[in-house]
């Protein structure tokens, strides 16, 4: 038989390939199902986890294929002589097909084009981000050094004795080293307050946080009536607590008299 020429290791590698592809396809399928069926959509965090898993699978497949590239290149698949080729022609064609399916081919082409057009797009973005981060961190360190650090002397100066340091400054400098414990406390406090600030800043948009409004609860009037929207509007406009008893025609008369008076 054809597979007799393959060593057990090679067979194992082929089987592992099959296993890995099976894992990948079933994960993609379950993600598709999740997206189609769950309402509302799955949590963003779970989507992120799934995406990470998929990318892991693909990564492992790529590594696996690269590792066994020699084997993959030389293995040729062909049907046994006793395969019922005529009856199962469709299946045979599918199994032996080497070209990509047309939609898949289109996708691959598209991806290659993107790659060719802007090969450096991703790295450029990363560079931009790195530049921005570097600029930001410089400023932040400067702010921290100028206004947030409580230490007046460097470690070396401390070891040599702060009394010997010639600062050239007239103002008095606190010679005592800041307490480490209090520093930690302060920094944790600061972090805490920063967190609070961030939470406050997010007040407008954070969807889970209750909106800050409401002047307080009011008492329910046991004698109050259920009012229609019209009743409420009437009350708001002219203070009337009930619909006018006069028929509209009378009001119209008043209206026309009013007009004449003008």
């Amino acid at each position, binding site marked *: 038989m054809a597979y007799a020429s393959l060593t057990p290791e090679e067979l194992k590698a082929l089987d592992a390939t099959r296993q890995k592809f099976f894992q990948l396809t079933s994960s993609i399928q379950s993600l598709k199902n999740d997206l189609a069926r769950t309402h509302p959509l799955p949590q963003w965090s779970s989507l992120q986890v799934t995406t990470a898993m998929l990318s892991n699978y693909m990564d492992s497949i790529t590594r696996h294929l690269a590792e066994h590239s020699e084997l993959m290149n030389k293995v040729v698949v062909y049907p046994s002589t006793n395969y019922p080729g005529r009856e199962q022609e469709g299946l045979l064609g599918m199994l032996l097909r080497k070209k990509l399916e047309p939609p898949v081919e289109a996708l691959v082409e598209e991806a290659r084009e993107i790659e060719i057009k802007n090969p450096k797009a991703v790295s450029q973005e990363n560079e931009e981000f790195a530049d921005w981060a570097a600029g930001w961190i410089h400023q932040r360190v400067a702010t921290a050094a100028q206004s947030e650090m409580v230490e007046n002397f460097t470690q070396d100066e401390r070891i040599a004795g702060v009394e010997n340091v010639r600062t050239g400054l007239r103002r008095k400098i606190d010679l005592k080293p800041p307490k480490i414990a209090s520093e930690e406390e302060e920094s944790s406090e600061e972090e805490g307050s920063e967190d609070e600030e961030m939470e406050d800043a997010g007040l407008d948009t954070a969807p889970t946080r209750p909106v800050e*409004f409401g*002047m*307080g609860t009011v008492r*329910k009037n046991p004698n109050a009536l259920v009012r229609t929207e019209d009743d409420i509007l009437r009350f*708001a406009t002219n*203070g009337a607590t009930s619909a006018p008893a*006069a028929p*509209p025609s009378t*009001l119209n008369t008043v*209206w026309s008299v009013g007009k004449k008076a003008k």
Partner: protein
Amino acid sequence: MHELFLTASVPNDDLTRAVRILQGFCGMKPQAFLCRRLMWEGPRLRTGLKGIPGDVISKQTPAKQPLWKTLHEQLVRQSYVVALVYEIEKGAFGQSTEQQDERPNHSLPSTCDQSPGTLRWNELPDPVDARPVNTRAMLQIDNERGLCSTMKSIGYRFTGQMVQECYRFINGNVIFDLSRYLQLPDDSQASDYNSPLPAFETLTPFDEENKWILMISVRVVNGKDPDQAQQAVSELMTTRSEFEGCFNFHMVARLTMDTRTRMT
């Protein structure tokens, strides 16, 4: 000045959601305010109305005299219910009975008459025509002191008061007012505009179900100008269609918002 508007009601249970939606739509935090609204009714006369005497008008600052004159023209033609609106702080409310002994009563620092307030006159909305929104003439005189005395001097009668709790949002030219109206618990307090307000907790919503009214409105200087009106209408209609399925904005029967003094 004209106001073009549509209204919708919002159940109290949906209030948080409604505020969040509007907050997101308008991209702003709500402006929350409380207003004490005093209603003043004109004399029950069909003819022979005096309006606002000339000396009252001439007492006003020159900038506001045209407003008072316009108001006079309206009040001579027809007797109306006019609202005086005073924005109030929560501290202006009294304390509940348990707290009353411990802390002095923080009533209004002065009576309404001494506080700056807003006079608001609304015309009966225009008859329904081709426009898909309500339109009414309106006049607002802001930041005036001594409004109560002025109203009394022109023969207007204080008929009642309420507290309006309102969240206001603005998007483009459209003003979103989400309000509910609270009644004072005690009739004797309600009938005296100089009495201090009771504790906020003792107020009762006018509607037993505690519904809120969401009004979207656009103000135009001249509603008779077709261009201005058309722009206001289109902004309101856009807003209405954006909120379709969320808030059911609709027109109001004009007599619901009748501000003319009833001759009964």
